[in-house]
């Protein structure tokens, strides 16, 4: 019975950590978590997973030569920002 309930809630956890669920469903999840260590761990580690991805993103910069080749492939060399 309990495990069945865990699975039902699993569908909502992503929306829960984004704060997009209505108060009633939030309360239901929080009540469940208070008595279910497994789900509490899943929620905490799910939240941390998203946080880690968002906070450890290395900046992606387009290299200058990629830009040059892009402009060349589009026949736009004359508009290259650094072109004189």
């Amino acid at each position: 019975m309990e495990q069945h309930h865990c699975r039902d809630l699993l569908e909502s956890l992503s929306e829960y950590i984004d704060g997009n669920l209505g108060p009633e469903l939030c309360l239901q999840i929080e009540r469940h978590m208070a008595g279910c260590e497994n789900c509490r761990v899943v929620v905490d580690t799910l939240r941390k997973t998203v946080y880690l991805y968002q906070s450890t993103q290395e900046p992606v910069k387009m290299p200058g030569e990629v830009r040059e080749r892009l402009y060349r492939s589009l026949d736009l060399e004359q508009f290259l920002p650094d072109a004189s």
Partner: protein
Amino acid sequence: MTDDGTKSTPALERTEAFSLEALQQGDRIEFARLVEAYSDIIYRVVMRMLENTQDAEDVLQETFIKAFRGLKNFDGRSKLSTWLYRIATNEALMVLRRGHKDTVSIDEPFQEEEDLDEPRQIVDWCCMPEEELMTSEARRYLDHAIDSLSPSLRVVFVLRDLEGLSTAEAGEVLNLSETAVKTRLSRARLRLRESLSGYFGKTHRLQPVIREGDV
């Protein structure tokens, strides 16, 4: 988050200060402005999806070549930026699917492999010190975990969680309902959580929480 670490303002919210009329008449100056405004963003998105500089460069070029050809048929119903994202993500998905033997269709139906998985790794790593969660080896593992997502989950995760697009925006780019975006994002996040739990559990020898029925 954006490159400079600020809370992301999706490209889709940028002011669309382009003359559609000029673009559709083949005005090179206006097209160069469009390329200048969006090439960095498109490159970043496709790099995040493909993790391969050569593939990303090919997709970047193909995106703007297709955009230039397709502009005359652009009906203006979506924003130019949404339309560019759509071309780029479609191109990147084709590259991913070429290397993903189980998938064939572009308008991929929701597949069996996207079914909701029961969490198996119940290891409480969330309160480990940040410096242990963010080592360079851990970062490499995070990238590896994204690579192991199927293309249809990966693209949603990249657009929503890495690029910061809203559910509605991601749905418009991918031609998916908001419900489908939410479902795929949920699957992607749960799978990544599962991978990271396995990784941190192993590297830090964490004891699994005992599940009901296991004893």
